[in-house]
């Protein structure tokens, strides 16, 4: 430790400071682009619009294509897409809203609409729709505007959507000489067909071909079964679950779901309870004849050599019913450029955007679907036809659905899937009480 070495002890601090300077330099340019966006208002050159979406990966391609076309037509606006996939999307969005730093245009799923609107996070679109740069909302297919409405106003325009449908594998039906399900079929038909196609092909005492793959404890999907049985989960004024979630109709739906798993044994038990899918893969493997779900995995099924795909609408019981899953775009209430945001939104959700969307998903605009011949397509036509059978989902009646009722309903479904001896009526009665108590806690304002 001689004097000459002493200088070296300053080395680390100096090095660290130098690194931090480099750091600041590296970070600075990025920040500047942000600042340009903030300062370059409508008069001062290009506006940068931030668009938040929960899509990712392949799902970003239509966004990028629409943005490319929009920027070509609107050179004064630059669109910055900010994708966040899946379950963490709202966590980021909420954080940004708290900091008043949210994207100008945001993508919201149907059941989050009441909460975000009630919290005034979005601008109502009615004035834009009727304004100078107006939008003809009659272009949309039936049922696609309603999920974006709350309190009688339009807050969101449709981005993408899917009703439920029943996929069936023609290979399996042909092999066993069973007729394909047809529109207008019923729950009884479902049990009959699924029963015929549930088989122990190798005689080892375990089923290896299943009639239908069900989506496990997926609560939002379950609303279809309740609606088809003629029930609903909540009163229309959103005040009570008693008499609804425990009604004979709801109980019948739960009972039927349980029977499919446990009594008729035509549905494979889920391998995990993680998500809506219930972790089953039998349909993809050619080991289940039917599957009830949304349109999302369809493109993969069309490429799957195990499957010769057909699609039919949901079977009816007491009522002809289906439910819609929907995502929409709205304008952030804190945006600096509402006019520019509207221009983009109109482009995106209007006919121009639908033109692009039709290559990726069902377009929302009727004329685009018509021109693409989708109505006559045996598969896409089946999906589009379901839009005429929609019933409202429970979240439209209360902003507290997710908080109060969803956990209770989920418990009911998990129980009937797990426990053949569970009593459906007891379960729904308990769930209604639990949901009601939670609703009242939530409403104590």
């Amino acid at each position, binding site marked *: *430790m001689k004097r000459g*070495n*002493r200088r*070296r*002890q300053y080395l*680390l601090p100096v090095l*660290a400071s130098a*690194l*931090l300077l480099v*750091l*600041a330099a*590296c*970070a*600075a340019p*990025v*920040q500047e*682009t*942000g600042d340009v966006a903030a300062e370059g208002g409508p008069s001062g050159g290009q506006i940068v619009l*931030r668009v938040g979406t*929960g*899509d*990712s*990966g*392949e*799902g*970003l391609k239509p966004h990028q294509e629409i943005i490319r076309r929009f920027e070509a037509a609107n050179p004064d606006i630059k669109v*910055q*897409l*900010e*994708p*966040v*996939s*899946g*379950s*963490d*999307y709202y*966590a*980021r969005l*909420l*954080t*940004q809203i*708290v*900091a*008043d*730093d949210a*994207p100008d245009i945001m993508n919201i799923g149907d059941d989050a609409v009441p909460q975000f609107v009630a919290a005034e996070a979005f601008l109502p679109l009615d004035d834009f729709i009727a304004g100078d740069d107006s939008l003809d909302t009659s272009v949309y297919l039936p049922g696609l505007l309603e999920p974006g409405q709350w309190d009688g106003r339009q807050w969101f325009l449709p981005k993408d959507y899917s009703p439920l449908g029943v996929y069936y594998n023609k290979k399996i039906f042909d092999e066993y000489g069973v007729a394909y399900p047809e529109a207008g079929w019923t729950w009884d038909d479902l049990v009959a067909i699924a029963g015929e196609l549930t088989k122990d092909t190798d005689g080892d005492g375990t089923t290896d071909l299943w009639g239908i793959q069900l989506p496990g404890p997926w609560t939002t999907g379950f609303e279809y079964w309740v609606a088809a049985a003629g029930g609903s989960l909540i009163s229309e004024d959103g005040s009570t679950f008693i008499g609804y979630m425990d009604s004979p109709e709801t109980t019948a739906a739960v009972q039927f779901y349980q029977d499919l798993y446990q009594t008729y044994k035509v549905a494979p038990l889920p391998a995990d309870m993680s998500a*809506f899918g219930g972790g089953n*893969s*039998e349909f*993809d*493997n050619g*080991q289940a004849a039917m599957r009830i779900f*949304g349109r*999302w*995995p369809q493109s*993969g099924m069309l*490429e*799957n050599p*195990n*499957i010769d795909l057909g699609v039919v609408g949901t079977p009816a019981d007491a009522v002809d019913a289906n439910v819609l899953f929907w995502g929409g775009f709205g304008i952030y209430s804190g945006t600096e450029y509402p006019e520019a945001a509207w221009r983009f939104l109109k482009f995106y959700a209007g006919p121009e955007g639908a033109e692009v969307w039709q290559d990726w998903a069902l377009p929302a605009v009727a004329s685009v679907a018509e021109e693409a011949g989708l109505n006559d397509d045996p598969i896409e036509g089946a999906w589009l036809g379901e839009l005429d059978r929609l019933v409202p989902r429970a979240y439209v009646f209360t902003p507290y659905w997710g908080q109060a009722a969803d956990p209770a309903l989920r418990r009911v479904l998990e129980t009937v899937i797990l426990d053949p001896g569970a009593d459906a009526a007891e379960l729904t009665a308990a769930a209604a009480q639990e949901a009601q108590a939670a609703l009242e806690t939530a409403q104590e304002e």
Partner: protein
Amino acid sequence: MTRATQLPDEPNWKRRARLQHWLATAILVIVAAIFLLPLIWMLSSSLKPEYQVFEMPPRLIPHPVRWQNYREALTYVPFGRYSFNTAFITLMVIVGHVLSCTLVAYGFARLRAPGRDTLFILVLATLMLPYPVTMAPLYVLFNRLGWVNTFLPLIVPAYFGSAFYIFLLRQFFLRIPNELEDAARIDGANLAQILYRIILPLSMPAIATVAIFTFQFTWNDFLTPLIYLHDQRLYTVALGLNFFRSSFQVNWAYLMAASLVTMLPVLVVFFLAQRLFIQGISVSGIKG
């Protein structure tokens, strides 16, 4: 592990040692096979066509083998750019942690002062508050500083120490015999010299651990970049991996392929850094 070479009864010992060596190798192989199992499944499914990923019963050897999954997965998302971003952030964070945590840990381990033990509990306490509730306030803070959409919120905090590594290093520093330090002090070394010449060289395994962990956590960190990076050009590898999942659809084969590839840098760094453990043994072996 033990220096048995110096035991007196040579032949008997030799036989036992050889036996022990083989036994150890056998156990290592078995345990390694168990630990490799999930990886083998990942590898297998990364080479399958998507529709075979969940095949029942599962097959280990994919047929057909889709090597193009790797090419497609890696072009699907701009991993080159994302890797560069992630590497830059990771490097900066490692430097920050090593610099700041060694200093702070040294203070807690070696210097006596009123309030030290209370402060140390406070250090531990900062590990205990779950992130969902501090996330929003922290974002507000960084947003005010104008740091959102830059790498700064990911890097700068590292220069102020991290409770986990402070604790880790403190535990190691505490074990170093005082005599070494006293001897240096008698030689006229000051605190900085003691820290950088004596304590740190003796703690290479611990510092390697800090570097490895920092590398791994920063490389894989999902939530912090998710919250703070908005511009896609700034995204990290972990954010890119998430592109294969959307709310209703996951491309498993691609996700597995990309997960494996983006894991490689961490493995390489680990493989290289673990040599520091060997270095540590010789240093403390001589001086201890």
